[in-house]
């Protein structure tokens, strides 16, 4: 577990000429009792890493699909302590590295002094905190450094060059290249600036570069994955899971992880 687990999982896929695939699901959607089966399905479908969303009442970086998933999760009584307790219980069955995607406030309220150690103890390998930019990192720095958790940095097309370089160097586990300007959710087209952006990140980053936001079809998965080391797909996975179309999730994963389709 920890930083190395994430990086190694991605590098192993890349070593056999394939690309990493990181699906996002919302913890507690539709309820926490299904989390184990959901994670096992993704693991058996060869997901490289799983990004697990923590529901928050005010998710400003998310589009309608993930907002709705968060609402369903909160409605079913999902809380961060409950999520951690389920993860701890199923720790031995889950071998795929897990990364939590959470806004800062649930961590803050839980207590920054203990939350990272509890997250690590639940078997989680890393964190993505979309509303904690570089400028506010000092708020958690001393606490997260007591653990081996990876703090994955989001880098955007909008970021100035110097900032791109700094974030790429700092990121642990992998770099999250935000492939669109805006919030999470499906997009019809992929930006033509994406290739140059990913190349820039790869030049500076000691860890793999994965692209996410707005990717929804197997074709887009293959196209974007080919530019870097892999892809992250959120809204589309949440949508398919909600509709009960699990087999289509597997198709998306395979579009990146099966070398034959690349």
């Amino acid at each position, binding site marked *: 577990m920890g930083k190395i687990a994430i990086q190694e999982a991605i590098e192993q896929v890349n070593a056999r000429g394939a690309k990493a695939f990181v699906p996002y699901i919302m913890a507690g959607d539709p309820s926490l009792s299904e989390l184990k089966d959901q994670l096992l399905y993704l693991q058996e479908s060869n997901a490289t890493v799983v990004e697990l969303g923590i529901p*928050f009442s*005010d998710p400003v970086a998310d589009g309608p699909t993930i907002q709705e998933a968060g609402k369903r999760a909160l409605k079913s009584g999902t809380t961060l302590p409950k999520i951690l307790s389920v993860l701890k219980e199923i720790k031995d069955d889950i071998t795929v590295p897990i990364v939590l995607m959470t806004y800062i*406030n649930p961590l803050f*309220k839980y207590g920054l002094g203990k939350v990272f150690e509890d997250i690590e103890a639940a078997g989680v390998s890393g964190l993505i905190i979309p*509303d904690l930019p570089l400028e506010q990192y000092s708020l958690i720095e001393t606490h997260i450094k007591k653990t081996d958790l990876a703090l994955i940095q989001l880098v955007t097309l909008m970021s100035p060059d110097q900032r791109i370089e700094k974030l790429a160097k700092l990121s642990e586990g992998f770099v999250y290249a935000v492939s669109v300007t805006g919030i999470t959710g499906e997009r019809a087209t992929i930006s033509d600036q994406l290739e140059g952006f990913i190349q820039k990140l790869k030049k500076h980053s000691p860890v793999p570069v994965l692209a996410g936001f707005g990717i929804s079809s197997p074709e887009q998965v293959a196209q974007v994955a080919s530019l870097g080391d892999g892809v992250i797909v959120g809204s589309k996975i949440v949508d398919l899971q909600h509709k009960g179309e699990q087999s289509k999730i597997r198709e998306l994963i395979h579009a990146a992880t099966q070398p034959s389709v690349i």
Partner: protein
Amino acid sequence: MTTYAQPDINGQFGQFGGRFVPETLMRAVLELEEAYKEAQNDPEFHKLLEHYLKDYIGRENPLYYAENLTKKIGGSKIYFKREDLNHTGAHKINNTIGQALLAIRMGKKKIVAETGAGQHGVATATVCALLNLDCVIYMGEEDIRRQQLNVFRMELLGARVESVSQGSGTLKDAVNEAMRYWVTNVEDTHYIIGSVLGPHPFPQMVRDFQSVIGKETKKQILEKEGRLPDEIIACIGGGSNAMGIFHPFINDTEVKLTGVEAAGSGIHSGKHAATLTAGDVGVLHGSLMYLLQNDDGQIQEAHSISAGLDYPGVGPEHSYLHETKRVHYTSVTDNEALDALQLMSRTEGIIPALETAHAIHYAVESAKAGNPEDIIVVCLSGRGDKDVNTVKAALEERE
């Protein structure tokens, strides 16, 4: 005595404030900070701003001695700073004109804003019409239903009003949607936030634009009384009218500053918006501040008869002034505000906004405890025309 100089270079007021926004917005937030600094040091910008404040908004507005109310209560002398006489009827436009001029300086032609009751939305739509800027206003569907007239006003002024059905469909959700719109359209759009909230530099910038209230008050009270007041009272939702009138007095420690939050149906009912009285610290909408939240860090709904106070957070600078105890924060219920609104209407012939009525209720209590040599200034942040339907319904229900 040390001189008050907040926020620090990181945009923090002590531990409060900061820039808790997605990376996608960081560039815009940093560019805005630079542009604001440049504008602050540019005499031409100030000249232009003063021109609009004077000839368009109608400043300076009066500091009015409320003789009838003072005599009726028989305690301290009560003055009102008449922000209700501004164009559009409230203090909100002091900020929207400043930010719109800044947006033009930055080459941005589109404006997005959120609104609760619609006052900030109308003030934003107004300056956008004046300065030929595209304008999108996000408003919760529940608020749209309650404030049809303000929706029509905004549309009449040429703005597009977008209904927000996410969450509970009120102000907090409108802020979320406005921020999402800004994240997506950040290259050509400026976000005019309506209070001393959001990521740095917004809380500082909105305070500075609103500080014209306190600067005028200081000059006027010295002219009329030859000394500073004993107490200044203002209502607090996000806290922009209060920050505006308090800020020029923060170093004058002999002046007591009092912020009045909305206690809704009463603090113990759980249905209130008294963030500093009954909330705790967390992060929302880009800033570390006091919030209403549950044990799991989920933000809770605020409740107040006045839509303008109906927000589950309070500006980071107020959070700081609460901890340093420079400002005293208290709260007033819906019913007390309704009483104060009627008293003010009958005694002075001024129908105040429901928000302002909270401050007036506390001022009356404070004046009762004072004596005729004491001076109280209340920020009359807005006029009550927008609230007459709400007031009518509430009074009928009470009978």
